[in-house]
């Protein structure tokens, strides 16, 4: 009977990545007073790209050939972890590292100035974002319980807020990156993909969507990790999964709204802000521990 909980999870695993990019774009358009594309438009674009043979750069080599597939497989594995919980969440950052390295290697091998610029910025986000993400995951993976009190709830909300900051950085969203601008000088993720085309671009796009899905689900798992509904038996576990799925579906809506109302901040500001987030999580952890 325990298998019942896997039915919604399986459906979630298939359909959530299909919906995310469309929801984000739709909500953003609505907030800006536009109609926006249909929900499945990003996937129509991917389908179109899949049919085209990639055109590679003069300096491209082995990474232009294998990186898209590796990136996709790494993101797919990372996506499966928070959904099915087949292993500890600690493995998620490692698969995301593989996905990131594939992208970096592709951009650097092509050898364009924007590839280098995007790679440099991506490494900066990695250096500053990784410790925060890892600390958040370590805390969520321990069986540590915060008391159900005003203080406990406040600490939980603050912890989630700090986690959300790092998720925005990892997902290349404002204030860290702004995919809407299409000005190469302001971009991170898109700058690395300027030379990608056809099937290559499609794989990278899918990997990016799966990564976003993994991070959103991880955030929800962290939020509900220590909500104990197990006393209700199988129904409790089922309920836990439904709450997580509903929570995850609201996040793309919030991201869409956030993209509509916010802008990308100055690049110099980012390291300071990430450093502050790290110190904030440390202070929070110390308070909780004490």
């Amino acid at each position, binding site marked *: 009977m325990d298998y019942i909980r896997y039915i919604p999870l399986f459906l979630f695993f298939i359909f959530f990545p299909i919906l995310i990019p469309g929801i984000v774009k739709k909500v953003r358009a609505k907030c800006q007073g536009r109609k926006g594309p249909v929900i499945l438009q990003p996937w129509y674009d991917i389908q179109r790209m899949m049919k085209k*043979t990639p*055109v*590679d*750069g*003069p*300096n*491209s*080599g*082995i*990474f232009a*050939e*294998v990186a*898209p*597939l590796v990136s996709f497989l790494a993101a797919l594995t990372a996506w499966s972890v928070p959904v099915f919980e087949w*292993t*500890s969440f*600690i*493995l998620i950052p*490692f*698969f995301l*590292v*593989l996905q990131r*390295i594939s992208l970096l*290697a592709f951009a*650097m*091998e092509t*050898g*364009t*100035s924007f590839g*280098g*610029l995007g*790679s*440099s910025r991506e*490494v*900066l986000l*990695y*250096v*500053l974002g*990784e*410790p925060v993400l*890892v*600390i958040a995951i*370590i*805390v969520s*993976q*321990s069986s*540590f319980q915060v008391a159900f009190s005003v203080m406990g709830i406040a600490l939980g909300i603050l912890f989630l807020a700090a986690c959300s900051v790092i998720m925005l950085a990892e997902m290349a969203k404002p204030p860290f990156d702004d995919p809407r601008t299409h000005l190469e000088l302001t971009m991170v993720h898109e700058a690395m993909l*300027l*030379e990608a085309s056809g*099937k*290559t671009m499609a794989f990278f796009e899918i990997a990016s969507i799966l990564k976003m899905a993994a991070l959103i689900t991880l955030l929800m798992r962290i939020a509900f990790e220590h909500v104990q509904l197990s006393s209700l038996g199988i129904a409790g576990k089922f309920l836990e999964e439904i709450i997580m799925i509903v929570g995850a579906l609201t996040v793309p809506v919030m991201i869409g709204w956030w993209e509509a109302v916010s802008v990308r901040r100055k690049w*110099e500001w980012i*390291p*300071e802000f990430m*450093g502050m987030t*790290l110190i904030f999580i*440390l202070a929070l*952890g110390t308070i909780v*521990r*004490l």
Partner: protein
Amino acid sequence: MLKILKFIIFAELFCSAGTALYLMILPNPDSVSIIGLGLLSILGLPIYFSSGIFEDAGKPSRHIGFILFFAGQSVCLLSGKSIWLPVFWEISSIGCLFFFPDENLLKKSSKSAAAFLFSSGLSMFFISLWIFLPDSNFARTSLLVGLLIKAAFSGFHVWYPIAHEGAPYYASACISGIMMNLPMLMIVKFLYADLHTMNVTTLIMILCGLGIFISGLSSFFAKDIRKSLAYSTIENSNFMILALVGASIWGMELKNKEIGDSFLFLFYFGLFHHSISKTFQFLYAGAMTEKAGSTKLDDLKGIGRTIGISPILSGIGAFSFALVPGTTGFFLESSFLYLNSKIFDTSSQNASIYLLVLFLSLTGLAMGSAFHLKFYLSTALSTRKENSFLITTEKETRDLRKVFWYLGILVFSVPVFSGPVAVSLYRLNLMKNWLYTLSAVSLIVMIVSFLIYKFHLYHSISKRQIWDCGSSHTGTEVSIPGSVFSDPVYFSVGRYFTSEEGEPYMEKYIQKYLARFLNLGKYWITRVESGDVSQYILVSSVSFLFSIFLIFIFRNYVL
């Protein structure tokens, strides 16, 4: 003559491997000697082989150096508390000195040799104190200090980057990949049982955190590739000592014993990861610096494309340090994180202090990983502006490929076997499922990679065109140096801890005051006339009397 020297080297490596295997079948196997000798024989071979790729293969001094180095290391691993320990340790150090250029001794090389000798002498002084003094806290502390100097522990590491700065690439690989293991294994052999009684574990733990943080930053910001790799080694060494201290702290608490055992496993695995991956990195860097004639990372941009090695093969060391799934680095650090989540569950007082250490460690480790990425991306993948033709001979490329394949297979195969072996040897119930999962993930990564390669599941490049920028440029005009990755972070993070050259401020001060102390001799020299023997005799006599006075004080009042 050369054949005899070669025979001795192979015999030494063969004996080390044989002794390690023999020790394994004994009733109470000595894991310290087994691991030390095993790593020596596994890594000695590729380092020795690679040393002849770019240098005159018939140079006898290099062979004699390897003979002394391997012999010294092997005997040290097998010796107990006896005078043979410092004697053979010094023999292996002297062996290393044979590697330093003997003709046209460059300023950098002589400085490196001096730093190496100075640290070795100082360390052996403390180790000798432990051997000759009766067993006491003081004697044990002096052993600890001696070993920490050799292990380039935080604060004692000042000599280490200097020693690598002018060393040939294979000497660096020997010092970092093999020699670095010895002091840490000696800590396990002679001090591990008493470490928690010495009241220094908390201090060491905090210093480890600081060491990982500062050396991680320094490796990321340093402009010289050898220095960067040296700082990365210091980061790894502090990480392993942290694991050892963790094993000691939690291993002594009855209810947390399993955490302690897991940390000890982490320490041993850390030795494997560091030795294999760092040897790879030093040899890869060496191949480029030999050909480029420069050790500045920015001068090496794109040179990896011109040594005839596939970018995937040349990146294995960097992938391991960047924690790509399936590598030794991934296995080590994911286990470390897993253990940390278990520490959060303990009610131990040390867990609160550990939170601070964890914060420092994670930031330092991320910086260290970023350095290896920066190194790899800018050297192996960036385009080469000039001299884009192959700069290595066919033989050099073939030999390099052999060495990298050998080390690459180790990087990917060790994690596959480590989980089941560790669980059966150490009975790590706490991490049993976790280690099995990691081994399974590593195996799956290997199989998937093989399938992708075998069945050509990726697209082949059929059409090439550059769209970016226009102006009919071909892409080779853009050559991206390593500083592109580190410079943007310097003004927000780096400048508080290191100079623009990546040298930590703390280290600069230590070096400054150490140099002032050592310069006291200059003051004396100015007062001595040439050939004034009586002055020298006076200094020697005073030093001798002072030594006797110190021994008298220690014997009667301190101990």
